């Protein structure tokens, strides 16, 4: 069952920012699948449309709603912005449109305060890179942080239960890599640092 009550007649919108190869699109899809498993009738996930290159900034989006989703245009005012690579914060486009009272969730070893980002939204940081390095979640020399960040989203949005995320991960990955990803999600969930701004 959905754990978050929807007060507005619009989907909850999450925009992902990462670099090509970091798995922003996969994470966007995993979250939508988990939400659907969690009982939301509406769940969509899409990449930023067009060409993508390894290392170049990319974005992806997830929409979640108790009702089927009829919006297909791009997200203008996200409830959550997730940043997989902290260096992307230098581009102000990353937080554009983020709703007042929404969440900026950053993969960073710093605290939310140390990021120095001004805005009428809450900030959370999770050291997904550190957690995944420690767990050995490394593919072709790249630390894979995308699934770990789902733990942080689950924590701040209170939208999707960890159990649903776990189930999607178990369906998607083989045993060994599923265990690593699950461990990363759970550790990130527990260690996410939250700064609520009134």
């Amino acid at each position: 069952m959905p754990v978050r009550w929807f007060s507005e007649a619009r989907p909850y919108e999450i925009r992902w920012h990462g670099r090509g190869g970091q798995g922003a699109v996969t994470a966007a899809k995993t979250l939508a699948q988990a939400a659907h498993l969690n009982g939301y009738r509406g769940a969509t996930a899409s990449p930023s449309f067009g060409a993508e290159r390894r290392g170049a900034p990319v974005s992806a989006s997830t929409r979640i709603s108790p009702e089927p989703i009829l919006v297909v245009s791009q997200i203008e005012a996200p409830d959550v912005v997730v940043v997989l690579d902290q260096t992307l914060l230098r581009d102000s486009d990353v937080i554009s449109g983020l709703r007042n009272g929404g969440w900026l969730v950053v993969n960073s070893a710093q605290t939310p305060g140390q990021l120095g980002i001004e805005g009428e939204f809450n900030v959370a940081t999770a050291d997904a890179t550190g957690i995944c390095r420690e767990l050995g979640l490394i593919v072709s020399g790249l630390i894979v942080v995308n699934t770990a960040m789902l733990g942080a989203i689950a924590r701040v949005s209170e939208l999707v239960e960890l159990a649903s995320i776990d189930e999607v991960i178990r369906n998607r990955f083989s045993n060994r890599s599923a265990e690593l990803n699950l461990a990363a999600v759970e550790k990130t969930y527990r260690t996410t640092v939250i700064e609520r701004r009134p």
Partner: protein
Amino acid sequence: MIDGNRAAALGAKLSRVQVVAAYPITPQTPVTEALSEFVERGELQAQYVNVESEHSALAVCSSASLVGARTFTATSSHGLAYMHEMLHWVAGTRLPVVLACVNRAIGAPWNVLNDQQDSMSQRDTGWIQMYARNNQEILDLVIQAYSIAEKACLPVMVCYDGYVLSHTEMPVGVPSQDAVDRFLPPYKPHTILDPGSPRNYNLVTLANPRVNAEGVLCHGYMEIRYLLQEAMEKSKETIADVGREFSDLFGRSYVKLLWEDRMQDAEIAIVAMGSLAMEATVAADALRRDGLRVGVIGLRVFRPFPGRDVAGALGRCRLVVVFDKSISYGNEGATCTEIKAALYGSGANTAVHNFIVGLGGRDVKARELADAVKKTLSLVEGGALNNESAEWICEI
């Protein structure tokens, strides 16, 4: 949760296609990848024919269809343009080939993103054209397309918006193979080329009817064309019948060639095709909150054009706003022209206004659709609506 391309591939697999020939092009490529995997893993008993171009892909489907196989291909944009000649050959031969067109803009200049100029440019090739509003409809329409094509002896193009649907995952109910088998029996070809009983096909055909070598009076070219047009007109009934049968079996409604949202009491109607029409329902929500009685018509079938249904649904409206994701240069959006023609002579006194939107992947938001409707309404009420030309939602 599947994206539109996977929905199309699954639709073809569930329809037990026997020959697949396709050439990869963005954003259709994942359709070809999925189908070749199904064949490779033995999940689909079909021949996957690698070809060097889209023209050849459709030539392979055409030939395979002529020897009695159920065939499938998929393409986009320049790929569909390259098929143009073969589109005519397949329709002229009355072959029930099904093609998924993943709608993409056409160059120049280069663009890989969505609009509907590619399939709209193939309007007059004799293919049935259907436009899916979401991924569920993509899957359902591909399955229905075989039933329609094989009953009407006409090829069917199932069109869906590139990226917006092709690369977006959403929940889709996938029917069981058993259920699809009950709905769609194996293909019984109307003609089979067979070396055991040799015959010619598609001979040079003169303008007038002529007696053949066996002494039989055969149609001239014009009679054959008449029969194609007649089949296209009659296919409206076939499409509706197949849709009803599908609705009964699978519980999803396809009873008309168009779908209506809140049209019962609507004074103002928005008309669009594909995912844009779905987005328009969100615009209608906003306009209704402002006290305007707005409904939406999604054109699911563009050829044959369901003129009578359109006139019936729009006749009571005082304003119809048509959004097109393509342009017939020198005139207006092609669906708007059809809407006006459908209303002509129906006795309706309805203002019709056309907007061109979303070309080359330009994002179209529900808010923009709602604003366009409001702006048009104020022009109508001020008596200042210019119906002569389409308005473009762009920076010029």
